[in-house]
């Protein structure tokens, strides 16, 4: 009864994404990729430990590739 009286509303962006794919939402993944890129740049330029410098490029590369991929995820 009450359902029929409700006006149909457009779904919010989060509701429009199928529940199974809700974890693949752009915002948090893009943030994670940005953090990885930032971490990679810091590791590249820090003056403290050589191993961090050595691993900086893989971290930045993973972050950048991840950013490219996740920027195609739905909002």
């Amino acid at each position: 009864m009450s359902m029929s009286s409700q006006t149909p509303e457009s779904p919010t962006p989060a509701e429009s994404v199928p529940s199974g794919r809700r974890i693949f939402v752009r915002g948090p993944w893009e943030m994670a990729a940005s953090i990885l890129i930032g971490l990679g740049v810091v590791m590249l330029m820090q003056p403290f430990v050589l191993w961090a410098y050595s691993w900086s490029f893989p971290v930045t590369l993973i972050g950048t590739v991840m950013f490219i991929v996740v920027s195609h995820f739905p909002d």
Partner: protein
Amino acid sequence: MSHSVIARAAEATPPGLARRFKGLSDRAIAWSFVAPTIFLLLAVNIFPLIWTIRLSFTNFRANRPNAEVEWIGLRNYDRILTDSDIWQTMQATAHFLCWTIVLQVLIGFSLAWLINRKFKGNDLWTTIIVLPMMLSPAVVGNFWTFLYQPQIGLFNYVVAFFTGADPTSFSMIGSVSLAPWAIIIVDTWMWTPFVMLICLAGLRSIPDSIYEAAECDRASKWRQFWTITLPMTLPFLMLAVLFRGIENFKMFDLVVQLTGGGPGNTTTLTSIDLKREAFEKWRTGYASAYAIILFVTVFGLASIYVKALNKVKER
């Protein structure tokens, strides 16, 4: 009206061209317009990038084109990422990057805040402040070299005037400890106006009604700054930081003109080191790997920059 425009455009099309496009779909015509640009982009940007990636896995030397090229896998990357000299170069770049950004943002924001207040001669002062940004980096590098001369340079005399030190007792571009600061000062002098302009755009985008409402609520100037001015200009500041960060990461011309990377390697930034590897030592494969590392870093930062830019657009 629009029909007449279309008819006039059709009449203006040369008959030969019109005959060639006759019978083509809209999509095909669109592709025929876009194709030259795509071809140019592929030839000028994408192909060299792919070729550089390929070279980075080899021991190719551009000064020995007939020598046998060996596929050495990730060895170039391994050498670069374990080389303490390149690590020091990265640190020199980081020192330059951090200090220029901090100084440019602080001074740029302060100048924007002052210029944003309406006063007589406001436009003239804006023009005067923006002047250094309009000069060529090569010119700036050259005349600052004269300003930094210990014997005749104005800079040493100004420092001596305020500190009482002997002006000939120190050399900004000849001293290991002062040279990194010499390039920071010049870059800050040159690019602070750019940050100021971005901050000014941010400050001018804040509606007066918000300040009026804050004053009705008896908010102090200090509180207005921290709760209105700073949060609302933050996206612009972020843009300025990212933009200057990316630009200074690639800094070459100004530093080459000023110090040439010296004394020793104290002001050798990554782009200068890369140029030496590629065109003085002719280790093309090694330099390609070096360039790819820098490219990925700049590309990653640029991705964040574009994301920040989109957020500003959404405001």
